[in-house]
């Protein structure tokens, strides 16, 4: 049977690359994005690539209280959801956030609270259906608090704990929860950074992510070596860590 896939933040480079993999398998997709014109361009592409059907809906992560409606619309449009990928987010300017509680709060709304907003109705529906996978884009930045990336790391770290709890709750219902922790990915969000050999393409991350969902994995570091890089970073003693500019 054709898989029913909801993608939130569907115009992100990683999400689009994942969507192409599902399209090639003949999936039915619902794309939620702030810019529905761009999501529609992606929908056309996915149809040509083999998707059975693709629908587009508006979702703005900066606006509270539209998550329930989005999930209800998508659930109805797809006739149930097998896979939900939550991929929206921003990379906040750490220096600006350090100077402003307002900006910090906004960054946490977009990168943490709005994600939880959609996860709650999705989790409840999947729990009653007794089936489904929730895949959420986290980050290696959530593995240890660092001065260069505190707010983004807080959002992604908070998300990791929330998903851990959710996975615990949903395990008896047969619902899978996957947190994806990409390292450096060459996307428009990171366009301003100089690139090195550690950087991965969205296509590489998408390949890993798609496979991890199929295998029912719970945590995915992508590319694989980030698991070991983050292990080392977590193990660095605080006294030493505080002397670095990481």
């Amino acid at each position, binding site marked *: 049977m054709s898989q029913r896939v909801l993608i939130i933040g569907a*115009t992100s*480079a990683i999400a689009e690359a994942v969507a192409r993999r599902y399209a090639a398998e003949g999936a039915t997709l619902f794309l939620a994005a702030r810019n529905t014109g*761009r999501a529609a*361009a992606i929908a056309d*592409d996915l149809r040509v690539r083999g998707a059975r059907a693709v629908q587009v809906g508006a979702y703005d992560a900066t606006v509270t209280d539209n998550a329930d409606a989005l999930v209800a619309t998508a659930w109805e449009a797809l006739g149930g959801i097998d896979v939900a990928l939550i991929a929206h987010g921003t990379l906040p300017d750490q220096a600006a956030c350090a100077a402003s509680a307002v900006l910090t709060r906004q960054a946490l709304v977009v990168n943490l609270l709005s994600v939880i907003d959609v996860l709650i109705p999705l989790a409840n529906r999947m729990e009653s259906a007794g089936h489904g996978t929730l895949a959420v884009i986290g980050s290696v930045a959530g593995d240890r608090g660092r001065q260069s990336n505190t707010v983004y790391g807080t959002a992604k770290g908070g998300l990791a704990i929330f998903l851990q709890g959710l996975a615990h709750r949903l395990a008896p219902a047969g619902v899978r929860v996957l947190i994806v922790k990409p390292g450096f990915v060459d996307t*428009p969000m990171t366009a301003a950074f100089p690139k090195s050999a*550690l*950087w991965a393409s969205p296509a590489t991350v998408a390949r890993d992510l798609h496979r991890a969902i199929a295998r029912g994995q719970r945590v995915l570091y992508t*590319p694989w070596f980030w698991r070991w890089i983050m292990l080392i970073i977590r193990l660095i003693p605080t006294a030493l860590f505080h002397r670095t500019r990481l």
Partner: protein
Amino acid sequence: MGSQPRYQSWGRFPAAAPVGVQPLRFRDQPLPRMPGSVLPVGNGRSYGDSCLNNGGYLLATRGLDRFLAFDPQTGLLRCEAGVLLSAVLSLTVGGGWFLPVTPGTRFITVGGAIANDVHGKNHHVAGTFGHQVTRLELLRSTGERVCCSPAEHPDLFAATIGGLGLTGLITWAEFRLQRIANAYVQVERTRFSHLDGFFDLALGADRAHEYTVAWIDCLATGKQLGRGIYMAGNHAAPTCEGSPKAPGRPVSIPFDPPLSLVARPTLRVFNELFFRKQVRSVQSGLEHYAPFFYPLDGIDQWNRIYGPAGFLQYQSVVPLAVSRDATREMLRCIAQSGQGSFLSVLKVFGDRAPAGLLSFPRPGVTLALDFPFKGRSTLRLCDTLDALVAHAGGAIYPAKDARMSPRMFAAGYPRLDQFRRSLDPAFSSSFWRRVTGAAA
């Protein structure tokens, strides 16, 4: 693993540094405003400096890689300009559709195929890539989006085909694919022992083949001058389904050798083996399309074999009437110079009128060569060849050029002044400034 894409041309000569690179991801984005000139860049497979903008900005179009529509009944495909030809093939070959025209690599973008008006082994029956384009959208620096086709804005359409990215940004294009029965090609290889043998084959009854091209041993001299192998192919019939395997993963040249691996002794052995490996004078068989059309795509980054100095491609066309003498003279010069060419290719173009104002393919005979870049001696040889081409009333291919003079360019492209009227003032390239003396 991803790393910073390099913005150099495939020949790796000349070196150039853009001030900035703006990656594009959505076709509805306005053209970014830059303090200098801009040039759209695709997959960087042009050999010379037509894909470089030294001191200016590049608009990286690989992110514009979406399909808009495909009609499996008619084979009409519409896609964004950054889609690779390899992606088109992956999408359509299984369903019985093939590129209507393809160059020797599938790792180029649709935008690049249009901007260089690329050709393939079927030029004599199908014309160029530009002949297959039914429509395209051009984003001009004024912010205007112009839909161009042979009927709408025909001047801008003709300037954009083969227009080297200088008329604006192509956001999407529509073109026709051709029907195939399967992924195979029926190939016939015929050995010929001198240049006249090539002309006999190419101008004889063999025009019945869809795809024709000849490999030439450019080290051969005297009576053997111009010896080589003539390759003719047709898409296989439905009953031919089966036998040959699709090629596996490409091998890669994983590092830069400190010196060019293409030198006279290795070349002599290679050429002799290539010529001799075919025992019978005519050999035929069924091949998968990939090794037939894209023999070098099986070797990732094959341009590295030429070492850090890079290499020069040289492709010329001369009118049919004088082609025997001109080609013989060019081959003699090359053999004398001692600068070997690894891939020397000879083909007769069809007589279809060019699709674009600056299109390279035109009725005549085309010779393509590549030389390891050895500095002045290589440049001198190319200048000598230029003189022969100019004398014959021919032209040089911009997509492969890094060194022709402004006079040579003007002589080969008589519709240059008409083209200038469609130039976008914000667009420029290293090539354009070199061959026209335009300001940066």
